[in-house]
């Protein structure tokens, strides 16, 4: 049993290394078979995860396989780094070259804008994500979803939504638009919760 397990693991490692090697080969060349090699690489990597699933429980086996793929990729990177020449840095001034000072009034509004963007990224995005997930839980519960599945979805959804709102707050250059998106993202679900609570639904 132990030797079979070891054989499966070695096979999984070899297939992962082959997959990473195929992707590395594809990244170096742009031949007619480029797409085929990329596809073969990803098929090999996926196959290695499937092989690893047989070494333990499916969840733990796949996780071990993912670690093997990452280590194979890091090994490939190390090989690439060692094979190339070391570059020298450009010599740059360490002190700031004098730049024109910003007008005082622009600095004040810029500062205020930055504080507002920080608030949007942090607590505002967090509260909006929390409201969205609480409302999402209520909606899925009303639709009859099983409790633990529902809780799992919103547990994963909360940090992902917060990340998404934080990204929007930094990505969008229009202050009003991103404020509206994030506030709307929080107020709409709060309204839903208030409405369902008032009508006695969702309990």
């Amino acid at each position, binding site marked *: 049993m132990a030797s079979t397990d070891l054989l499966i693991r070695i096979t999984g490692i070899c297939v992962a290394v082959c997959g990473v090697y195929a992707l590395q080969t594809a990244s170096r060349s742009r031949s007619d078979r480029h797409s085929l090699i990329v596809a073969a690489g990803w098929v090999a990597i996926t196959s290695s995860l499937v092989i690893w699933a047989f070494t333990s429980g499916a969840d733990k086996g796949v996780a071990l396989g993912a*670690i093997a793929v990452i280590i194979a990729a890091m090994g490939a990177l190390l090989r690439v780094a060692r094979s*190339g020449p070391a570059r020298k840095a450009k010599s740059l*001034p360490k002190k700031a070259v004098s730049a024109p000072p910003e007008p005082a009034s622009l600095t004040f509004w810029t500062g205020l804008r930055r504080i507002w963007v920080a608030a949007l990224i942090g607590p505002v995005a967090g509260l909006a994500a929390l409201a969205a997930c609480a409302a999402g839980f209520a909606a899925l519960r009303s639709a009859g979803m099983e409790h633990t599945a529902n809780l799992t979805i919103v547990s994963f959804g909360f940090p992902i939504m*917060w990340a998404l709102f934080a990204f929007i707050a930094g990505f*969008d250059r229009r202050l009003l638009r991103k404020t509206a998106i994030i506030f709307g993202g929080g107020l709409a679900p709060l309204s839903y919760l208030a409405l369902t609570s008032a009508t006695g639904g969702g309990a």
Partner: protein
Amino acid sequence: MTSSIWPKASATRVAQSLEAHSIIALALGGLVYILVLTGTICVFNHELQRWEQPDAPEMATIAPDAAARAAETVFRMEETPTIHLYINFPQPDLPRTVITTDTQAFFADSNGQITGPETFPWTQFLLDLHYYLHLPPVLGLTVVGALGAFLIALSFSGFLAHPRIFRDAFTFRRGEGRVPLTDLHNRLSVWTSPFHLSNALTGAILGLASVLGFAIAAAQFDGDIGAVFSPVFGDDPPAVEGDAPLAEIAAPLAYMRETFPERPATYFILHEPGTAGQHSSVIGKHDDRLIFGEYYQFDADGAYQGNVGISDGTIGQQIIGSVYNVHFGNWGGVGVKLAYLVFGLSLAVIVASGLRIYFTRRREKGRAAPRLEAAWEGVVWGTPVALAATLFAAIAGGIEGAALVRMFWIGMILLTGAACVHADASSVIRSLKLVLAALLFFSLIAYAVQHRDLLFSPASLPVTPVLLFASVALSGIRFRFDRLPLKPFERTPAE
């Protein structure tokens, strides 16, 4: 030559994604870095606990009767009745039996005799830093969970800001300057993304669970937070007033050994001991799964009541039951822990290099910020220096608790401030590396003085040689084997 199969990235999208990436990194990079570094070290918290108290009795297993005897002894020692009584069973990376109540913890030997209190002040300081940033628990967990969410945002924005992500997948130019630094940052970010995304997500889930639970309870269950989590982790039986003799402890443990021999017990939990409503759970380990274990429930007489379902219940229970182990890397033995060490240090390099790229770009554009750049290096190298300083204080000076916390945060402020004033990033790095090497070395000296008889015991290894190696490597001492004297029979060309 064929064209790429991937759609061209919009320049506007790339620029705005990079802006979002920079904003979040500049605002929160320091705290994220502290979390990443402490988390990486925390993977080995069991090894560090053993190292801090190398004289505790160790064993591979403990008999049910002996464990019960130890638990009963500690229960009788309690002045104020405890609500929970725990037995922490020996595990491969922490082969010790510890009896814990709400306020105390004691080691037990293999005969069930209590040998002394369990105390690991520096490791506890490190765990509290990673879990709560030393803030009050619920606030700290929420802040740390939020940082996990921001790390997800950094990953997301980083991917979108990377227009040649597939073409450059294996481009890695080493050396000095912005290009090699960018290659290091981008390549490590992409290829270790399964790790840092899963760790950021699971860390955020764990940290934000309280806040989410409160919100759902308020919205759907009239504020009853138990109703939110009990379908996952099991219900408590209805409360019953009155005293009772202590519940059976040996019987459930013996039952587990006979009925589930492939599920070794990691914890025994006795709820409300000595009361009419007492009941117990045994957490059995499932070695072939990512879950932390399964709760096997017993009544006060030791009769088996069934399991909660973390291992074989709903998909939701099994997924939520896996979050803890996936985050802390304690699901696959030493091999997985070492992988987490490599990936965790890679993430620390990603965070550190990210801001270095920002400062290098500023210099290239003629907007150098030497004080901020030096301050960032003060954070990058100051964090391990502050950790090493607290380690030395704990070992040599017996300092613990709030004093270690103050020492760390005041140290961080002073180191970052001093670096900012000095304004030379290269010399800040050199100086802090030497200070770190010295602190690790003197910590080892202090440890060797205190535990000279146990310096080479299984509890002291492997932490001692790792710290010694780190100290030598950081000091910059190079061993020149080519300058060793010639062997007697070798002749020089002149002979």
